[in-house]
């Protein structure tokens, strides 16, 4: 495995090893570019994963201090856990459930498609669906997405069968076990899904794509990629001319280290990436790096989410098998006649008993709550995920008081629902409830959003430098050798889960960076 000198200023330094960073690192390494990935978390491998929700959470989740504010309920119930993100090699692709859908065409140009929406900072992406489609195809092939590339769909589990039966009764047409980055048959030296049911805790069979055991070892095998775990980047440095020159990070022992770089790519997920840019403020860039637009940290999106659980008089055992391999797409279209713009997906979800207790209705107690818990084996569940409106006031800022163990200001995550978000969630709860009632649900539980798993938009792409932080290739408008490579590039959130798009953008970005490096433009 490669080991690069800290004074080697020819390397590309990538911050974060998740969907964006892990993919970019491998893609560049395959093209012969030397890469150092700095990852704040430790390296837990498949054999380390545990089928136990709280134990796994303690092992993998980002639990360093964060602060939540705003009128969203998460700020009240989980004031220091606004988001559920992984801090471990592989990033949140260790936790993720594998749902892999492409955006619709209109979702790249919602400012045009939706018109002016009061309070929403809508903007068209600087790229179109047609621009991204070839890269989507590469991403689907890389990740082994079912129902693409001739890969069969996964078999439906009990939870999916309930959802599918309800969808049929309701007259929905577009439902299946989804497009999942989970092997339905052996592929890419990984086996097929064993229906273990702990997709959120790290897939112990390796059937689910994660950069941890696909991109990263492949990149390492080229001899061009070094991954340094337990390396928390504190700030990005630059020269007098405004080009970035390297990063300062804390190693496992808490000692300060410095890695020089030719190019720096930020991929710490949409809370840490803007935090890092803001914490890198200097005399030359007093508002933070890449922030001449003032948009760094703004337009934080987390999808309109919510869940509906339903109890039946007979058993479901929803926890058996894949967590999210069931998707209804009928409500994903943009149909303002429903009272809101944008659309949403319905996707199966299940939580184990410990997480169900914590998240079904945070703060609830007494007989109504315990009666619901006693229905656990008879429950089916769906997650609702839809497009939320970007708002300038929904943003990541540096908290005035909170400091992490290195003394760095922590992120404050502020979020208020937009009226469009509220209208969409209300509609989604109604439809989810109707779906389950159509197959005999005796109780339904509209469940409040969990801490954010989809964190987007805080370093958004824009055509014009004044509207956003990066250009169509994720390159900072202000600094030509600084890139953003994660979900924070998203101009708008679209309805579907983000990771396929993050991976497609990273593959495309690698092509761009390698090309510019070989042409000596950066």
């Amino acid at each position: 495995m490669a080991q690069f000198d800290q004074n080697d200023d020819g390397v590309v330094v990538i911050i974060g090893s998740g969907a964006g960073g892990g993919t970019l690192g491998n893609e560049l390494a395959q093209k012969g570019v030397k890469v150092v990935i700095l990852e704040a978390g430790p390296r837990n491998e498949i054999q380390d994963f545990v089928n136990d929700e709280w134990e796994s959470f303690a092992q993998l989740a980002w639990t360093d201090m964060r602060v939540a504010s705003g009128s969203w309920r998460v700020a009240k119930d989980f004031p220091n856990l606004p988001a559920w993100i992984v801090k471990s090699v592989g990033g949140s692709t260790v936790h993720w459930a594998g749902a892999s859908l492409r955006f619709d065409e209109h979702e790249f140009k919602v400012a045009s498609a939706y018109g002016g929406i009061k309070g929403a900072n809508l903007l068209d992406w600087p790229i179109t669906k047609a621009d991204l489609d070839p890269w989507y195809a590469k991403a689907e092939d890389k990740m082994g997405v079912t129902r693409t590339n001739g890969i069969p769909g996964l078999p439906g589990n009990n939870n999916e069968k309930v959802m599918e039966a309800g969808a049929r009764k309701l007259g929905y047409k577009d439902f299946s076990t989804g497009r999942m980055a989970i092997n339905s048959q052996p592929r890419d030296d990984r086996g097929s899904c064993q229906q273990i049911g702990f997709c959120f805790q790290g897939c112990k069979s390796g059937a689910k794509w994660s950069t941890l055991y696909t991109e990263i070892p492949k990149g390492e095998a080229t001899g061009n990629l070094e991954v340094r775990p337990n390396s928390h980047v504190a700030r990005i440095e630059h020269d007098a001319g405004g080009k970035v020159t390297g990063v300062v990070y804390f190693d496992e022992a808490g000692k300060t280290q410095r890695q020089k770089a030719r190019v720096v790519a930020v991929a710490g997920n949409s809370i840490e990436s803007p935090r890092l840019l803001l914490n890198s403020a200097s005399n030359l860039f007093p508002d933070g790096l890449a922030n001449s637009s003032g948009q760094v940290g703004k337009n934080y999106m987390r999808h309109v989410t919510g869940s509906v659980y339903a109890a039946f008089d007979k058993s479901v055992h929803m926890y058996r098998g894949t967590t999210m391999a069931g998707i209804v797409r009928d409500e994903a279209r943009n149909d303002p006649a429903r009272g809101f713009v944008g659309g949403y997906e319905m996707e199966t979800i299940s939580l184990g008993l410990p997480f169900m207790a914590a998240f079904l209705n945070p703060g609830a107690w007494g007989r109504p709550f315990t009666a619901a818990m006693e229905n656990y084996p008879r429950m089916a569940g769906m997650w609702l995920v839809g497009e939320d409106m970007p708002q300038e006031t929904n943003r990541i800022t540096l908290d005035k008081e909170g400091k992490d163990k290195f003394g760095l200001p922590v992120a404050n995550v502020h979020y208020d629902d937009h009226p469009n978000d509220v209208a969409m969630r209300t509609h989604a709860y109604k439809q989810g409830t109707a779906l389950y009632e159509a197959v005999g649900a005796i109780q339904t539980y509209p469940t409040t959003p969990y801490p954010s798993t989809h964190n987007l938009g805080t370093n958004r792409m824009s055509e014009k430098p004044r509207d956003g932080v990066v250009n169509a290739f994720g390159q900072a408008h202000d600094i030509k050798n600084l890139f953003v490579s994660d979900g924070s590039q998203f101009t708008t959130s679209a309805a579907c889960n983000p990771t396929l798009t993050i991976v497609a953008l990273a593959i495309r970005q690698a092509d761009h960076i390698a090309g510019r490096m070989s042409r000596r433009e950066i």
Partner: protein
Amino acid sequence: MREVDPRSRYSRRFVLKAAAVSVPVAAVAGTAISEAWAEGGALQPATLKTLVKAARDIYPHDFLADTYYIAAVTPWNEKAAADPAVKALLEDGVKRLDAAAQAAHGKPYAQVAWEADRVVLLRGIEDTPFFRKLRGDLVVALYNQKELWPKFGYEGASAEKGGYIHRGFDDIDWLPKA
């Protein structure tokens, strides 16, 4: 469909050991629980017993024996020993709960006969740090006990059993035919 046998596959002794409480095996096996678990910690025995009562009132499951609530409550003994602030929060909280019970019913909380009456007392302190601590800790300490999972039809870890691919991931048999 393959149903889940609600009988615990773990001995009660194991549960209580996990909670770092020593209990005579006979007491565990029988219905009457020895009071020994409540002795010898940082918290008063009476405080611990009141906390067990409150724990059941907060998350009442009639099919759960007291041992599960005891196992959920006893970790506070260690936390109280390690942190005087926790000790004060719990001791003072119970004192105030008892005072409220005395005022309303002329007896301490644990002796108020009806759950509904005790719940009214808990509602009265719902927004206090004491209650928030109780509820917030209990929701993990109670439901994260592996031994009670089968009683809720949850099977826990499955990877070492080969997942559910041959163990009923798709065995639902009561849905309307497509």
